[in-house]
């Protein structure tokens, strides 16, 4: 539906989303959720590790602070599926770490409720 795109879009520069992932649609690591927090890992190598492709580098820059998968997708302007593939590459390559929350303890749920009630 290219006709629905805004006039401001440079349609000549439009790249089909999964070109960025080399056509891969399955993340190398399957357990990334929308709200999973990912954060850049300091690479000890003097040159900062192997050079990264453009989108990968943007994600690492973005994730200096813990950032959700959903936010990464939005910030670099790619569909969620594409963002997951790119993030999973970086996690597997040791450039990002992701934290998973196990089932929340009851006191945390109560804390969330109290905060929500106080909004």
């Amino acid at each position: 539906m290219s006709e629905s795109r805004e006039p401001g879009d440079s349609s000549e520069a439009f790249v089909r989303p999964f070109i960025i992932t080399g056509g891969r649609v399955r993340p190398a690591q399957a357990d990334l959720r929308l709200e999973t927090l990912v954060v850049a890992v300091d690479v000890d190598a003097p040159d900062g590790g192997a050079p990264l492709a453009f989108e990968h580098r943007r994600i690492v820059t973005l994730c200096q602070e813990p950032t959700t998968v959903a936010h990464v997708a939005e910030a670099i302007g790619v569909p969620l599926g594409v963002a997951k593939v790119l993030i999973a590459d970086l996690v597997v390559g040791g450039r990002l770490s992701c934290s998973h929350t196990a089932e929340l303890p009851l006191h945390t749920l109560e804390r969330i409720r109290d905060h929500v009630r106080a909004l």
Partner: protein
Amino acid sequence: MSGRSERVAPLAVKIVVSGGLGVGKTTFIGAVSEIEPLDTEAAITQVSVGVDSLAGVEGKTTTTVALDFGRITLDPTIALYLFGTPGQDRFSFLWDDLVEGALGTVVLVDTRRIEDCFPALDYFEAHGAPFVLAVNRFEGSERFELGEIREALGVGDSVPVVECDARARASVRDVLGALMDQVIGVRVRGRRVAAASR
């Protein structure tokens, strides 16, 4: 791993907002979110006219076609994300991704098109995750007693049915509070059942 791991781990939790097309999910999220609701609205084009049923909500000219989310920082270590499910049935394949790991779900109901929330209701009942029904009061819509709505939807007493105005922050806050009560209630009851069966 670096020294970062020594910090208090931040926590990101999510609540899903679901319901039929045009029921007010994006408005609901926008009423409490501290970030501008994402610009994921695209004009309903001639292409989707006839595909997306707009009977009863003809005034709606945009609809959510991509990720729709908002964020509330509850304290320095907890961020609450609100994710809207795409309104159109043809995007329901995205729901599993949205729902996995969610604390719970708000299913919004429009009494002018009550049947529109049935797919969401079926999905979340089958999923077994905590949810509440929030009846969004549209101006000019006929008012029904919550009991009548509960009956029309065929949900049991264990599912809270509340009224809301998706445009009003205080109202949205109350719905989220009711959902958290439900989340905690389900957890506590689950524990009791587990303890009793030991």
